[in-house]
């Protein structure tokens, strides 16, 4: 028994990093290799940090998206959720509310948006895709109406300093998202809630019969997604110094792409935190590399499409059928 305990951590760690994640990692390595060969300075420390920083917002959203996808749902409303949370918390700051309070309010808004999604999915029983398509418009409209369409400017420098700072040479945003990723990994792998998510998405009827609180599990997933959208929004407005009601346009597609590249199945019951992070970095590295190569915009669009397909293909090939 004590022997088992000693051996456990290593196997546990390996269990956390699955075959599937290895496929995603290979995809990332290939893409990094290609850009490294084509773009001088791509591997410069400064640029690698850039890539991480630019991936951090998408990674943050994609983590929430991963949990929702595992539960068998999808959250198309992350962008507007982020926008609504951003404009409300920004306008509170501008009105002089201490920024920790304003941030907390932003998080609360994010969770509230998630709660509405979750209730419509879990209690009313509507399809996640269409619920969040509806709230996608609704939350965006609320953000626009609240601000009259104008960006909220003049965020306090003290607030901006948090999200723009660095620690040990790494941007704070990256560190925050890394911490979120570790928490998400622990939640998924180590807590009952993580099991519930996998069970609800994997076989809802079996989960119900086993006594898993289906509705609460789903709602929690959407609320976490909303919360992480709100966090992503704080990072972004800290960086840009302005909160726009149109912020977060098409974020959902990037987040879903990261989760899917990382191995999440849109049929539910399957997904990996590590994979998702790798997926987000793949997308970030791609954007970064294409910009550094000064690829013309039409060809950038082409490359974006092809790289998403290539990442999935590499993964498919390295992993084999199944």
């Amino acid at each position: 028994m004590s022997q088992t305990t000693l051996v456990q951590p290593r196997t546990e760690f390996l269990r956390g990093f699955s075959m599937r994640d290895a496929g995603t990692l290979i995809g990332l390595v290939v893409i990094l290799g290609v850009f490294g060969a084509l773009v001088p300075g791509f591997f410069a420390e400064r640029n690698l940090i850039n890539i991480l920083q630019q991936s951090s917002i998408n990674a943050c959203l994609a983590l929430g998206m991963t949990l929702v996808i595992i539960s068998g749902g999808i959250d198309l409303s992350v962008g507007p959720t982020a926008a609504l949370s951003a404009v409300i918390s920004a306008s509170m700051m501008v009105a002089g509310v201490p920024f920790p309070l304003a941030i907390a309010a932003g998080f609360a808004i994010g969770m509230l948006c998630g709660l509405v999604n979750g209730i419509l999915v879990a209690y009313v029983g509507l399809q996640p895709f269409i619920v969040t398509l509806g709230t996608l418009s609704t939350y965006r409209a609320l953000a626009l109406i609240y601000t009259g369409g104008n960006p909220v400017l003049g965020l306090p420098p003290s607030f901006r300093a948090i999200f723009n700072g660095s620690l040990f040479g790494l941007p704070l945003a990256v560190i925050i998202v890394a911490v979120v990723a570790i928490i998400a990994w622990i939640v998924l792998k180590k807590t009952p809630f993580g099991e519930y998510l996998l069970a609800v998405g994997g076989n809802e009827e079996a989960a119900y019969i086993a006594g898993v609180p289906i509705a609460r599990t789903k709602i929690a997933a959407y609320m976490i997604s909303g919360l992480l959208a709100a966090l992503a929004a704080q990072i972004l407005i800290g960086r840009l110094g302005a909160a726009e009601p149109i912020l977060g346009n098409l974020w959902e597609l990037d987040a879903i792409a990261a989760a899917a590249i990382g191995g999440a199945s849109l049929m539910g019951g399957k997904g990996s935190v590590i994979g998702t992070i790798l997926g987000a970095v793949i997308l970030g590295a791609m954007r970064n590399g294409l910009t550094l190569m000064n690829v013309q915009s039409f060809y950038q669009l082409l490359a974006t499409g092809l790289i998403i397909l290539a990442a999935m293909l590499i993964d498919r090939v390295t992993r084999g059928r199944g």
Partner: protein
Amino acid sequence: MSVRLQFDGISKVFPAVKALSGVSFSVGAGEIHGLLGENGAGKSTLLRILSGVYRPTSGSVLIDGKAVTLANPVAARAAGVAMIHQELQQVPRLSVAQNMFLGHPLTRGGIFVARREQERRAAEALAAIDPSINPSAPLGTLKVAQRQIVEIARALLDRARIVAMDEPTSSLTPSEFERLAEVVKGLARDGVAVVYVSHKLDEVFGICQRATIMRDGVVVDSVDLKSLSEKAVVAMMVGRELAQEQHHSHATSEVMLSVRGLASATKVRDVSFDLHRGEVLGIAGLVGSGRTELLRLLAGADRTTAGTISLDGKAMRLSSPRAAIAAGIGLVPEERKREGIVPLRSITSNMALASMGVFAPRGVIDHGRLKLVAVQKMKRVNLRPFLLDRPIRLFSGGNQQKAIIGRWLAAGTRVLLFDEPTRGIDVGAKSEIYHLIEELAAEGHCVIVVSSELPEVIRLADRVLVMRDGTVAAELGKADLSEQAIAAHAIPQTQTAAGNAAGQDNR
């Protein structure tokens, strides 16, 4: 013996179907109570009410004399009810132990799942039936029989006052049943009330003292099994006497299907045999001996790595089920829910799926003809209730099976491959299916029946192949056929404990 569980006037109405009406009976503490009835009699529905999955339309459930509200599965568990469901209710991606503790995990500090403690307790619970199952393996990598054992062990974990078992042994071998029987008797000795549903009457007679017999949603009678014959019970179940079953051979000497040196990437190796027109070939063997995989090869569902298959003397390449069907080979699969039915579609659509081309000679389906054929085939298999437009998922397992058999009748299939054809099917329907198989043989079809129930193999087969470890270990003609002979060839000689034959195949 005090009354532990009492059903009092339970009725359940589904849209358009009255599944139960006024069901009342009681089970004592320490009693193992059989619940018998044909497919669709309402057994599962009753137990699902007991376990909080369904709410009764009227009536009440009393536990230790007190009426209880079983609003959901959690409430039922709190009231001391544990249940083994007929359809495996599991999450393939979670581990065995995680599945067993799903919904009420053991935790460390209330926050983290205590994986190792769960696995230890799971191993304890599994040990009584199949110690070879690894509690940390993903459940999806287990075979059906092992998954069913996990389901049983899960119910044992709960230390419940009432254990409801809905066909717990449908995928198990007799030796596994023996171990289960010990476990169940142990529960009874501890004062647990057990409700035991099975279509295998020998099992019911083996462990139950009393039984309640249901037909069409009502209780026919609660009887003492000591004082009744199997035949009498069957008569109460089906409402008529069943004729004594006799084997009839229609085999000819004309070789129809010829298999030589067949092998697959995973399990099957060097399988050769001939199948004659009108013959029923039985395939016996232990769980995991490769029977299912052999049938899947013949049905074109998996790839062969070596060997030849010829039909009517013509060599064939079975590249897909479609090709096999075109050649006249059809498979009634082992896992009905996963590989057999399209749940939302009607009986008619499910039946016609393999022969749509036939019903649409000019590209558009001739629904008139389809309906006529459906009526005819479903009458032949005796579908109940006879509602051809109803989604198949709303039918009982036995009736779903009949629709799948009807699929191959409609497709004019010449070689029928049955994998565990009567799993979960009532005695009445079972004998109907036996007759069907014989009729098919008489009409010149040939049939392969894989079954873990030796009486079934002996009853049906003209000849039996015994498989062991992916290959044919013996061929037994009608004269040599006995349960002992089959068992002797099926169990690897080197192996001492037969129980280990189902050894964990963890990839």
